[in-house]
């Protein structure tokens, strides 16, 4: 965890910190259209590889890196802001 970088425009953002979960890179995967799930390089279900989900991260974030929490709330009727 890093430290705050001084005064920022938005008060809350002063308290943004480095996070090992946010930086964690996830094992490689690809989407298997036939099985409708992500698979690892051996074709096995990818989610089973994330055994350390309890440790480093609660799963992937929308940008593919580790999640810092339950960032799945979609504050709109449709996710048109999440391009």
């Amino acid at each position, binding site marked *: *965890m*890093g430290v705050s970088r001084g*005064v*920022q*425009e*938005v*008060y*809350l*953002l*002063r*308290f*943004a*910190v*480095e*996070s090992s*979960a*946010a*930086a964690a890179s996830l094992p490689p*995967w690809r*989407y298997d*259209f036939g099985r*409708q*799930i*992500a698979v690892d390089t051996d074709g096995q*279900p*990818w*989610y089973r590889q*994330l*055994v350390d*989900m*309890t*440790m*480093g*991260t*609660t*799963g*992937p*974030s*929308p*940008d*593919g*890196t580790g*999640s*810092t*929490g*339950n*960032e*799945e*709330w*979609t*504050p*709109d*009727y*449709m*996710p*048109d*802001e*999440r*391009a």
Partner: protein
Amino acid sequence: MSVLVLSEECDPTTDAVIEALVERGVEVFRADLGWFPTSLHLDADLGSSGWAGTLRAGNREITLGDLRSVFYRRPTAFTFSPDLSNQELRHARMEAKLGLGGCLWSLPEVLWVNHPARQADMYKPTQLAAGKAVGLLVPRTLVTNRPGAVLRFAREVGGPIVVKPLGYASIHEEGRRRALYTHVLTDDELADLRGVETTAHLFQQYIGDKAHGLRLTVVGGGEDSQMFAAAIHAGSAAAAVDFRADYPSLTYRVVDIPDDVAAGVRAFMRHFSISFGCFDFCVDTTGRHWLLECNSAGQFQFVEQATGLPITAALADLLVKGAP
């Protein structure tokens, strides 16, 4: 009878649920809204009992009338041709939203877990107000863009207060993602409130005598809903404030929840018409349960892996069962 799953391709929580659905022998159609219009195709016309027709992706097709439930997780935005101008893009996006969204959202007798319009109702302040109205204990909370109001609030609370996001718990800065954990404000930080006026901010009474966090995952929206409660014990100072700051230090334990909390949670779910929710509580040393929030599309694999609570199976059963 079939189940529609709407989520992005990278969603391991959904993968586990899909496998459980396949084991139960039901037809599953998974798609990301980001596939529309290039590789997800809608063909629906208005019949006597709502929109009838098909959704297609590749060689897979689903009949809207056969749908028993929809698992709505975290689909990405529609993806349009890069050749569209900004004006065209805005138009196309709105048409897609109203067209595809309007047909799907209105399907009769389909169980939504959860309906996106219900999820859109769940702004954090709305949740806290609803929680209070159904009798759950909610920490004192201030939402403001006035620095002076923060000082007044801090005085009235008379103890430490936290600042935390109303929405996403992280921000992209200079190509990196930084986390926005719950932050207990020091006196120095309270003395310099510049930047509060830039937007809405949420301040809250800090529950300092925290015994542990509680993640309560609820499957089903009725009286027979299943509640999976896990106490999250922090093993470090950082995790004691916000458990996400130090995952390796955490330990989990299956616990029971008091009847009045369970009743409040059921009433909360009825209020928002949701049939799945991940609730975060703080439990203090006197056993009081303070509601922090409910995530209507929350992650639960980390709880399931740590405790063995059969959340995925319960969710798959709910989707197979469909609307009550």
